[in-house]
């Protein structure tokens, strides 16, 4: 037996010529196979009456209902309302979070004034504030947007604050020997240096936004995906509930992809970002 190993690219191996393509399709089929099989089993179970449609609608039924909801405008309308709430809440969270993180990250006094109370507040589960928010802000758009904003502010604040604090002091020192003003130092050193952490925070914030929205819309609302699902519950329409779930899932997936895209576009200076680019 030899201790040597040979590392080669795929083009070198002799029999690989015909294989890779079929192998790759096989791999991608395998990846999608199990969900497809599951959906088929689910459909079969519903068709054969093994699974009560009172508990779970069949995949076909979900597809038909989804299409109907799109056609009659129910889904687009409620989706629009939900997106607006999540978007406004997230927007508020970004402005709050960034402002607070800059205040506490860039000055000692700011840190004492801002960071301590926020560290206490963040241990409270934001969802526990739902009753209070309804009392304070009624049942309009305000409590929903604020609830999203509240939940999403913390990940933004915490990550950006950490990012600013962990900037290499040697770089800041360098900036001062080069005669950069305070504002130039913030713009050229602190902000870009903390951007990776900010984007990590943003990714969490987006996830939290959906979570808060689901709760806010199910507790009390007259529109939105969550309301559509709660309405369906009253009429035992599991198909509509599942359509709502599906929409939430797709929204979460898309927003995560958007943040990932932002990361690869804005952080191309990082070695791993580079790898993703050339590959």
């Amino acid at each position, binding site marked *: 037996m030899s201790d040597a190993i040979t590392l080669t690219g795929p083009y070198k191996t002799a029999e690989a010529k015909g294989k890779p393509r079929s192998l790759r399709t096989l791999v991608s089929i395998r990846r999608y196979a199990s969900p497809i099989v599951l959906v088929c089993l689910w459909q079969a179970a519903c068709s054969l009456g093994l699974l009560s449609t009172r508990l779970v609608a069949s995949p076909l039924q979900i597809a038909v209902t989804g299409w109907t909801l799109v056609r009659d405008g129910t889904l687009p309308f409620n989706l629009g309302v939900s997106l607006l709430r999540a978007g406004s809440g997230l927007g508020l969270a970004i402005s709050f979070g960034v402002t607070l993180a800059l205040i506490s990250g860039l000055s000692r006094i700011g840190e004492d004034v801002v960071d301590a109370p926020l560290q206490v507040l963040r241990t409270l589960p934001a969802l526990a504030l739902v009753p209070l928010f309804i009392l304070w802000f009624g049942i309009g758009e305000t409590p929903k947007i604020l609830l999203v904003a509240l939940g999403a502010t913390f990940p933004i604040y915490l990550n950006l604050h950490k990012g600013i604090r962990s900037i290499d002091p040697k770089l800041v020192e360098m900036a001062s020997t*080069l005669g*950069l003003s305070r504002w130039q130092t913030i713009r050229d050193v602190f902000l870009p240096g903390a951007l990776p952490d900010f984007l990590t925070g943003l990714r969490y914030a987006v996830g939290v936004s959906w979570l808060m929205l689901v709760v806010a819309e199910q507790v009390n609302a007259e529109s939105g995906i969550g309301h559509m699902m709660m309405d369906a519950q009253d009429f035992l329409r599991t198909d509509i509930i599942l359509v709502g779930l599906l929409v939430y899932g797709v929204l979460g997936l898309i927003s995560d992809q958007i943040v990932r895209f932002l990361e690869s576009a804005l952080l*191309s200076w990082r070695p791993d970002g580079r790898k993703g680019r050339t590959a």
Partner: protein
Amino acid sequence: MTHTHSEAHPGTAVIVEQLTRRFNNGPPVLDGLDLAIAPGEFVALLGHSGSGKSTLLRTLAGLDPVTDGAVTRPREVSVVFQEHRLLPWKRVWKNVVLGQEDKGIRHRAETVLEEVGLSHRSNAWPLTLSGGEAQRAALARALVREPAFLMLDEPFAALDALTRLKMQQLVADLWKKHGCAVLLVTHDVDEALLLADRAVVLERGRIRVDVPITIPRPRRHSDPGFDALRSLLLDALGVHAA
């Protein structure tokens, strides 16, 4: 007790008088230190690790306050540290002209990168540079400001031997071209002999040895004139050459 940190007009020498520096009321790191550097003079500062070389340099650079004593230096100074301290999120040429915001920055950056032999990497991200290339970029960033006084704090200590030789040659060339006063902190006696007009040794907070190096330039490591100076400096550093 004097508290002076004056900036003279460009071209003035560096003058340090009775500079004393303590940290947290401990023993003085710099203890009544006197040092003068003429315009355009190249001085090598030697000393043991912890002897206060960086402290002196940081004080000269204005990074540490002058609490006791007086320091006079030109307004335009630049520093190169052992680490390149390039901003990873700015391309090399933008790092070079960091803090400058007028129209001609791109052109100035390209010119100085050409000087240090890095023009082919001007658009690169700093994290893709080799150690030698990064130090070249740091040198370019220091020189683009046309300093009257350039401080180098062990700039080549982290480089491999071959790269270090090239960088020493580069510094010699750049100094000849720019004619600025230079203070090079190093613990490599040969580096000091190769580059400097004068070598000073810092010990217990003061300049204990101050010798001119009069060997004609360009110098080579093998120059026989080095031997006497080398043993003198090694002696001063407490290292006894066999």
